């Protein structure tokens, strides 16, 4: 078991190093950092001095190590657009994105799982078919289209919900949250639904197909044959086994949500990391791009690692395999 953990952690570290390599290449070799920093009046001598100061003449390996060292200390240089340290810009926007992502993930789970269970248990009812249609639409509609339609309906036509921004936020230490204010909560609704719809559809379909499979298995048949009431059969046995793969996938999808937040944040002008990243791509602001890459990779790798470890802890089959291995 311990060997398994260590192996997974080494794997995670390897992934991070590869990503760091990519981020470094981006940072150093795409565009000329010096040209980005100085005006046209600067002489060639001054540029050379600047190169020296920034360490751009050192061997590439040394530069790479320096890059990683700085990254570990959260120093990603300064943005070309805003002339501020990248880490400040990202830290400012991090709570916004995380809140939105977690809210959408919860939304997709809280609605997706029951919908999936219902659709599995009552396969031919009209409500099931309706849910399936919703899920199909959820997977097929691009996120931006959903967002636009929701804004048009709820913000512009009905005036029920705000069309942009986070509303009023409350600062708790270094974190800012919109969950404690009325306007903050209202502002979370439309972006949360937009971002979560795809995941909802995915989870619903997954739960449904997993549950259908589980319901065919022998042990469920035996449980029914024993005369156990439906409720216990479905929720006590079937659901538990369905949920394990579902939860792992849902966990892995959290990373995907953070990435899709880029689109949602653009449509709703949500001041998060995604919008920052997109503007950086449009403006070729390399420091932000490479910092975002590293940060997001770190989050993903961590989530994957935790999910893998949890999965191993929860699923007895894997534990047995590991002991034998």
């Amino acid at each position, binding site marked *: 078991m311990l060997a398994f953990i260590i192996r997974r952690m080494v794997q995670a570290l390897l992934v991070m190093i590869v990503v760091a390599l990519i981020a470094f290449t981006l940072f150093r070799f795409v565009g000329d950092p010096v040209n980005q*920093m100085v005006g046209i009046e600067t002489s060639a001598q001054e540029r050379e001095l600047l190169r020296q100061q920034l360490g751009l003449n050192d061997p590439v390996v040394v530069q790479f190590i320096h890059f990683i060292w700085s990254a570990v200390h959260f120093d990603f240089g300064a943005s070309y657009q805003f*002339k501020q340290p990248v880490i400040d810009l990202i830290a*400012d926007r991090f709570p916004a994105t995380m809140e939105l992502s977690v809210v959408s993930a919860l939304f997709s789970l809280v609605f997706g799982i029951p919908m999936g269970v219902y659709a599995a248990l009552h396969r031919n009812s009209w409500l099931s078919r309706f849910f399936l249609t919703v899920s199909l639409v959820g997977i097929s509609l691009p996120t931006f289209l959903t967002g636009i339609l929701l804004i048009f309906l709820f913000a512009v036509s009905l005036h029920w919900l*705000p069309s*942009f921004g986070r509303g009023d936020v409350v600062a708790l230490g270094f974190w800012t949250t919109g969950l404690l204010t009325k306007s903050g909560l209202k502002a979370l609704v439309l972006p949360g639904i937009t971002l979560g719809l795809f995941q909802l559809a995915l989870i619903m379909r997954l739960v449904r197909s997993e549950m259908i499979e589980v319901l065919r298995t022998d042990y469920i048949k035996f449980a029914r044959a024993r005369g156990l009431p439906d409720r216990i059969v479905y929720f006590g046995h079937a659901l538990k086994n369905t949920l394990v793969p579902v939860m792992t996938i849902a966990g892995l999808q959290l990373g995907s949500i953070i990435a899709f937040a880029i689109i949602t944040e653009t*449509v709703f*002008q949500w001041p998060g990391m995604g919008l920052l990243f997109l503007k950086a791509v449009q403006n070729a602001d390399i420091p932000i791009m490479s910092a975002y890459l590293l940060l997001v990779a770190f989050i993903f790798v961590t989530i994957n690692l935790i999910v893998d470890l949890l999965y191993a802890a929860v699923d007895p089959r894997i534990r047995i395999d590991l002991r034998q291995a």
Partner: protein
Amino acid sequence: MKFRTAILAVGLALAFWAGPASATVTFKFAFQGDLKSLDPYSLNETFTHGVLGNVYEGLTKRGKDLKIIPGLAESWEVIEPTRWRFHLRKGVKFHDGQDFTADDVVFSADRARGPSSDVKTRLPADAKVVKVDDYTVDFILSGPNPILNAEWDTWYIMSKKWCEEHNSLTAQPQAGQQMNFAALHANGTGPFIITEHQAGVRTLFKRNPKWWGKLESNFDEVIFTTISNDATRVAALLSGDVDWADPIPLQDIPRVNASGTAKVLQGPELRTIFLGFDQYRPELRYSNIKGKNPFKDARVREAFYLAIDEKAIADKVMRGAAVPSALMISPLLFDLSKDFVRPAYDPEKAKKLLADAGYPSGFEVTMDCPNDRYVNDEAICQAVVAMLARVNVKIDLLAQPKAKYFSKVLVSGGYDTSFYLLGWTPGSFDSWNILANMYRCRDEKGVGGNNNLGNYCDPKVEELTNQVLVEGDKAKRDQLIKQAYEIGQVRDWAYVPLHQQALAWGVSNKVKVVQRPDNQILFYWFRKE
């Protein structure tokens, strides 16, 4: 007991829920771009100047009718043609508490003309600024200059002590990594104080209770947010999330006006949108013609001019919110502009001219265009591309956000363009600004016609420009200006002026605003009912 506690609980809950009891008047406004820097010398951009004009002040300002009025200088006199004396206002304090004195004026004059400042042209480079006493400053010029303070409403006075203390002796450069304190914090003398600034997201202003003047506005606080997405911005205005939004896309104007919550103010703007050519390099950088530069031939420039149906652009792309222009300056600012007529759309003649110049089957060239700076800029460029395609000129359109665009085509990018779209408002509301910036020759470093990106150069126009600067008699001066335009525009087709765009301020019905044609948002004149 339980009942009473319940009532108390409900009462407290209601109190919280009812929100703050004060009557703070808050003004929320949104713009399509960011307030990238709070350093008033770092970027010569209308929006930045306008917003900072509520926080910083110049020696003189302009009133609601654009006439020059006293600012930090109570009065001034021209002692000799080359010596102007300004009497400074006493008892004015900067937001950090320091007194405003002549030292700050001298310091600001040097800083504005210093390295990496983008407002160098506010003062003549060789003018000497001399402190006479704590509240009197002299400007000693090398030659007479009747419009010395014409652009001072956007030359803001900064505190010498504050800049020294915070290591901000030079302006924040456009392309640069140094994080200048002045770019992130503001310390002016004006009616509003910046209390919070998140670049690219929002900025918070609070009323300055110690301001020396009488504040017309009744705002206690002002919140600025950037909303780059057009639809979101309009939605925010209509739902009341913001009180003022700019620009309102032209196609949404009828909807906003019909909404009952807001309306659109469409006064004339002084900005001229135009196309320019690289007329200087021996070979164009971004074209398929090698060995020569097609734009050096006036016939090619004329062909481009005639190939573009400006009326269609004004009607369809700008939906009537544009006035086709024959000159690079608004007719509001030049009395003799009625003597100039805009040549009519004539694609056949354009094709003939191209053939005569040696390009019977046209040629290819890349066009640089911003996509978030001027009203419908990218749409105008697309229309231009389609029209030029009809005369066999194939345009490869490179539309970029303004930060990237400006860092490419302006002096900081080495004027790296072959064919471009640009907009220009003469900050002094006078033709000399146009001639000096657009028609004068320049060198690689931008000395001379700093914004003459294509480097149109004619010695006679150069000479006329210099004469215009010093000529005191208005009638004679206008004639000189007319001559310069006749050579530069009519004979030489130096540029393709398209139109002056109209402003499109979306304003909540609860707010009374003042809209000047220079599009500066000076909310110290606004009031909220």
